[in-house]
């Protein structure tokens, strides 16, 4: 082979490489965008689950907000106190005071207290049961307990109790909203832990009609409305509704005369002493026991 051809190709390719190398070097210097290195560092300290519970789209936008000083580190509900401390130390700020938000279930109708009228056979999902007429639970507003929320929870924070009610572990709950979206009956709400007053019911019946389908249903007796601070609780469509904008006025007095324990004063975890009703050792629920499929 002609040595000249060899040399010329080396020269051309080498020249091209040199030209582009210089171009890249120049443009990299000219077009440089400075990014706060702390963003990356803070982002690495955050849990990285992108759950959105802090109100930001993911962990990176939250890291930016932390550095801009728009949010306190405690706003991340996934981190424990140690991790929050690490972030605060790194940024040289206070951890901040954000009362912990957790998912609360607005139903206490476990199998023994809210009996099923019929057995349900079909797709094992709450949404599917509700799509075909509620699956046969006596109270059509109540939890059907077919695990849509426990499946939706990414943090293992919800466990189905043997009596058919999901129990939320506040330690693990990050208030990510997944269970709220998964529940076809809209029974989950996100609520700060220091909201102690809660109506664990969505039943729209009143009087005996309500207690016939569930022993712990709100029967619209209005006692809590009278006992609470003026305007805190109102009766809407036969259901006691708490105005959480006025929650500062909450008082244990409101729950004292409730005949069914539908409204309760909650400290810490929900159903901490077990879900209502005694275990019946797996006896099938349902009085007339018709099948639904």
């Amino acid at each position, binding site marked *: 082979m002609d040595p000249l051809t060899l040399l010329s190709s080396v020269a051309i390719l080498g020249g091209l490489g040199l030209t582009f190398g210089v171009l890249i070097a120049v443009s990299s210097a000219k077009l440089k965008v400075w990014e706060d290195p702390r963003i990356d560092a803070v982002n690495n300290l955050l849990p990285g689950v992108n759950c959105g519970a802090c109100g930001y789209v993911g962990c990176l936008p939250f890291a930016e907000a932390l550095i801009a000083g728009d949010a306190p580190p405690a706003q991340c509900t996934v981190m424990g106190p140690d991790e929050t401390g690490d972030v605060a130390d790194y940024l040289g700020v206070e951890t901040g005071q954000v009362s912990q938000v957790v998912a609360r279930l607005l139903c206490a109708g476990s199998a023994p207290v809210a009996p*099923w*009228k*019929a057995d349900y*056979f*079909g*797709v094992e*999902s709450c*949404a*599917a049961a*509700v*799509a*075909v*007429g*509620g*699956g*046969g639970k006596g109270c*059509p507003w109540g939890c059907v307990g077919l695990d849509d929320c426990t499946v939706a929870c990414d943090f293992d924070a919800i466990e189905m109790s043997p009596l058919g009610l999901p129990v939320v572990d506040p330690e693990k709950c990050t208030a990510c909203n997944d269970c709220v979206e998964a529940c076809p009956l809209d029974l989950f709400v996100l609520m700060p832990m220091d909201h102690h007053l809660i109506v664990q019911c969505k039943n*729209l*019946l009143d009087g005996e*009609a309500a207690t016939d389908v569930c022993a712990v249903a709100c029967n619209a007796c209005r006692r809590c409305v009278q006992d609470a601070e003026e305007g805190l609780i109102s009766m809407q469509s036969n259901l006691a509704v708490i105005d959480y904008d006025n929650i500062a006025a909450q008082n244990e007095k409101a729950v004292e005369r409730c005949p069914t324990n539908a409204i309760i004063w909650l400290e810490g975890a929900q159903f901490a002493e077990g879900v209502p009703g005694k275990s019946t050792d797996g006896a099938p629920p349902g009085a*007339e026991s*018709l*099948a*639904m*499929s």
Partner: protein
Amino acid sequence: MLERLSFRHGVHPPDSKGLTATIPIRRMPFPDQIILPLRQHAGNPAKPLVRPGDHVERCDKVAEADGFVSVPIHSSGAGTVKAIQRWPHPDGSLSEAVIIDLDKYSPQLPRPRMVPHWEGLTPEEVIRAVQEAGVVGLGGAAFPTHVKLSPPKDVKLEFLLVNGVECEPYLTTDHRLMAERPERVHLGIRIMMKTLGVERCVVGVEKNKPDAIEALRRTAPDDLDVTIQPLTVKYPQGAEKMLIKAVTGREVPAGKLPMHVGVVVQNVGSLSAIAEVFDTGFPLVERVVTVTGPGVLKPANLIIPVGTRLREVLDYCGGLTDDVNEIVFGGPMMGFSQPDLDAPIIKGTTGIVALTKAQAHPETVYPCIKCGRCLDACPVFLNPSLLGILAQAGRYEEMAEHDLMTCMLCGCCSYVCPSNIPLSQMFALGKTMLRKTREKQQEKTAADDGKAA
């Protein structure tokens, strides 16, 4: 000649109609109490006109229509309104209902005519009278009949197609109506044809009802062009679109109505109800219901006042056997399982089927083996296997892309599935979820528009 008119796909469940096919229709006594849900028809629920304590006569209007796609509800007996409250509805919910304690020892006498004679009426007046009489499709869906009678002006109708197929197993209400009261059916056809201004009428009847075909042929009027068309037995031939395909060979495009191919379909039960309304002058306050299934001691075809509780109907039919496991309103293929024996009979209740443990029991669900039987069964040519997989994954939007909305929940796929996968329930779920998403989106756009304004 061998006629084999039918549609493609579909299934052949055992028709099980022998229990009641030969039992004449008879009247059930009035119960002590009737429950009239305000939502008995497709469209807006009716608005109550009475208050607790009011006394109503038989056929008095207790609730009025709310809008065009809605019908009034009339009391099926004379009595006193006890309450208007939530009551178990056959769809599984608790819905508002008017509860009336019927007068004891009341003769429940017929009253002076409330509906005018039809001969002198213009089509508009007939349509008005049909709505006022509370007539809905009695084939199960309970779609207000007057809406079907009022096609848009630009639609050209060629003929009236009468649905006497009754393809659901067990049910024999339409069968008995055609066999016993063919004149009523023909009078209904006459009124319909005049109101719609169509020249031809075809009555589709499956061949497993030879006595009905014979009775309709024997009484067919000479001055009308009415053809009685026997059809090969197959499920779901009674579905509007399948029937049109079977009789005319025309296919109704997805998302279109039968009127877009020049046809109006009416169920024989609805026709006979229209005839009865104009004949007797009473609104729709009772209907024929087949009470059947191996779980009922004395199966029967009964005329039942609307609002009678399921429990009382079963008691009247001798009660239930010990091994009853499931009670269904409607047929076993598309009907609704009833969790509550206090649910009332409503206008759309075609039958009550009590199934035993041997027929209705939970079966182990196995994974899909991609055998394709559901594809061969689906009368609207969907891919139920794929849709089922998407439903399990919660990918409802993709189900919509695969034409989930064409599915009419006939249950053929679930019936043939060798793995016992409850496909049609998954599709009911998919439809519900899609509707919810659409509603949320609409709310959101409405809220955004509100903000922008």
